[in-house]
């Protein structure tokens, strides 16, 4: 302690740097902690081996165009295509949906009433096979097959957490099962749907918190009449799951047969994309932000490392005589090394204490990320400790090398230099 005070001039810089870096680093570590802990929560569905296909109607400029076909016929053609896809030996399940593939850049909304409480959520406008394609899970543990059976034009499927944010709602979670509720309007003559099954919560993407709007949905049956009213088949997504182990080269195999097998009426295959690509595209901005934060952490730590090694290099060289004397008087190498490192860590502690105060106040004033996770004492403790360990690690490495160099000298030699 006394030594730190004696070296206060050069320590002042180090102290200042440690203080500034501690606060900045803590802020970023905190954001990264929030992001990563949300990232690793369960998603509630599975997109491995899944693809989305789009079929468009050709124009009169195409040679194979058949004039005079109606949208009703187009939808029938689409069903025929789905049928043929489902009969492929390498395909497990095929579904139709509108504006609701996972990681879609847009979504429909839906609302229904629980007694007098309006419940708003995402709308999953799908055919029953959708649950099998994306492997949603029934809360009773029976997997996705039971969900596909439950979804009918008069029965919808909800995520179990759909009413959790509505404190006034009369029913929550499992109590919802089997109830008949008015949809869109709370009137006796409004359309009523029954709640036929509940699934585990499904998050929108890896960066969406579980209590977010994007983590609640209501799945409603997409009927043929509704598809016809959309006007274009290209707005309807055809999603399919490829059987385990047959995923390699699936796109190439499908494209070779596309014109012969999957061109029906005026419809042709426009595009086929793996859902993993859609996920990558949708999450790009969030992933980039996370990577940027990692880069800044790396940059700051490297700077601390360089600062420490620079300062302590001269200091240990400067104090070679002292070190040598200590060694001559019987201190072990580890003892001296520990002493130097203790000095560094103590310096960090001195700068960290005011930094903690600043950090706690920043958190308390909610200037940190609080929309996705509340600022709690636990979160503060974890992030502050994490930051401390990161910086302390850098200090230990930064001091270790010059200290070892200084100690390798023979005591007599150093004393002789004096």
């Amino acid at each position: 302690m006394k030594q730190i005070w004696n070296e206060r001039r050069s320590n002042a810089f180090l102290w200042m740097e440690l203080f500034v870096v501690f606060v900045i680093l803590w802020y970023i570590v905190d954001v990264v902690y929030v992001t990563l802990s949300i990232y690793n929560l369960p998603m509630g569905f599975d997109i491995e081996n899944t693809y989305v296909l789009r079929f468009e109607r050709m124009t009169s400029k195409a040679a194979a165009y058949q004039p005079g076909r109606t949208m009703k016929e187009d939808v029938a053609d689409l069903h025929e295509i789905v049928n043929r896809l489902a009969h492929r030996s390498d395909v497990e399940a095929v579904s139709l949906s509108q504006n609701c593939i996972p990681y879609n850049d847009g979504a429909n909304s839906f609302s229904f009433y629980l007694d007098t409480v309006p419940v708003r959520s995402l709308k999953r406008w799908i055919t029953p096979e959708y649950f099998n394609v994306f492997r949603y899970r029934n809360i009773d543990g029976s997997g996705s097959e039971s969900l596909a059976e439950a979804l009918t034009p008069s029965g919808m499927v909800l995520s179990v957490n759909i009413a959790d944010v509505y404190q006034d709602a009369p029913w929550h979670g499992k109590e919802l099962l089997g109830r008949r509720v008015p949809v869109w309007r709370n009137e006796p003559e409004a359309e009523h749907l029954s709640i036929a099954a509940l699934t585990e919560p499904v998050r929108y993407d890896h960066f969406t918190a579980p209590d977010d709007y994007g983590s609640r949905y209501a799945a409603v049956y997409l009927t043929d009449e509704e598809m016809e009213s959309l006007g274009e088949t290209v707005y309807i997504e055809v999603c399919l799951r490829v059987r385990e182990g047959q995923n390699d080269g699936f796109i190439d195999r499908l494209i070779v047969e596309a014109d012969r097998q999957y061109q029906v009426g005026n419809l042709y295959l426009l595009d086929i994309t793996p859902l993993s690509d859609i996920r990558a595209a949708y999450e790009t901005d969030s992933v980039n932000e996370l990577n940027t934060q990692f880069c800044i952490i790396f940059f700051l730590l490297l700077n601390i490392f360089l600062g420490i090694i620079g300062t302590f290099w001269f200091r240990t060289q400067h104090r070679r005589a002292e070190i040598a004397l200590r060694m001559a008087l019987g201190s072990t190498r580890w003892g001296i090394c520990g002493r130097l490192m203790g000095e560094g860590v103590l310096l960090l502690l001195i700068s960290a204490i005011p930094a903690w105060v600043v950090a706690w106040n920043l958190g308390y004033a909610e200037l940190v990320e609080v929309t996705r996770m509340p600022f709690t004492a636990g979160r503060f403790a974890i992030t502050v400790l994490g930051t401390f360990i990161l910086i302390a690690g850098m200090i230990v490495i930064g001091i270790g090398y010059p200290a070892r160099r200084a100690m390798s000298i023979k005591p007599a030699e150093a004393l002789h230099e004096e």
Partner: protein
Amino acid sequence: MMNDFFFGIKEFGSMNTNMIKLYFKQAFYQLRENRLISLVSIIGTALAICMIMVIVLVLEVRITDCVPEVNRSRSLYMKAMSIHQKGDTSDRSSNGCMSLTVAKECFKALTVPEAVTIVSTGGRMRISVPAGKMMTVDNLETDDTFWKVFSFDFIAGKPFTAADSESGLPKVVISASVARNLFGTVEAVGRTVQLNLADYTVVGVVKDVSKLAVSSYAQIWIPFHSTEIAGKCWYDNAMGTFRVVILAHSEKDFPAIREEAERLRQKFNDGLQDSEIFYRGQPDDRFSFIFRHWGRELQAKEAYLHYLLVIVILLLVPAINLSSMTLSRMRKRMSEIGVRKAFGATANVLLRQVFYENLLLTLIAGAVGMLFSYACTFLLNDFLFSNSENRTQIGETSLSADMLFSPWIFLAAFIFCLLLNLLSACIPAWRASRMNITDALNQR
């Protein structure tokens, strides 16, 4: 201190080259003397320079001229427009791209600019050779002036003409990689391809375009009258699927062009019954263009602030760091300085020596940092340049030399080096040189 520094600069001119050589030689020996610490200082400085340079480079690639967008500096952009009921003062509005009618009447009709091109927002098309290969590509539907506003490298053939564009002839320009994929060669002019199953003739093959050329990137380009895209419009035929790029004779014409565009807008609104269109400050210059998100007011000021804040933070830490390192280096040489002062060296001479030493160090670090930053930009290409807007496109965010190497960036890096050098070295050096001789000798 600044006086001393400027004095040093003034003297610089009168010094003979041998002197300077000597100074640099001295500095070089000093750096070699403390290898580790020099290395640490160089890496520290290089790291800071690298970080700042990467930020500047990423911005630079999106803003400055590069093939095929060689005229970015004298271009104005209309990314989106808005429409609402006449006299509506709430912020309710419909936002999106414009219809062909608006593009023609409000922008194509402009007389001040050199050229105006109408470009579709882009989408995917299926391209195939009859009974041959098939692939999905990104397409743009545009007109003949597109080829004047942007400068493409044609490997074979030429662009479609004004007549082709007007009458919507099925002609297509394709990129080299598409040609190679479909035909195995870039000599594809005159061959027939099917776009969404309709026959088109290939008239030109161009070098692949990077996705970073956001206004001109595609893999195939066709005249918009050759499809039914012009019919896709709504809200009094004002909203649609088109954007506009305006090429001015020079930057000085921007105000005149905006003024004329405003006149045309009012004229167009006079012809509308209940609604009116507005642009929220567009047409944009390049910087505003990349920070505009379609339906919203421009947030360029926030973008500036954001960059400034990041740079200040990234500068602050290494600046403290380097000062601390230089300070401890100075402390070590305190006795040397004391001896030299005792033998009659002036503060000025000492300061100059320290300055040269640090200049050399920073120059080396600057060069290393620049190399680092170019390496980072290439290696981290995907992370630095991909975003949710271009990620869904098929092509590559490839970088070319002309995007990265510009004199402006060298100058910026050099000034930055000098600034860091001044910040970190001259203050402790000045203080050291002012120190009492006896204090220095006693290492106090």
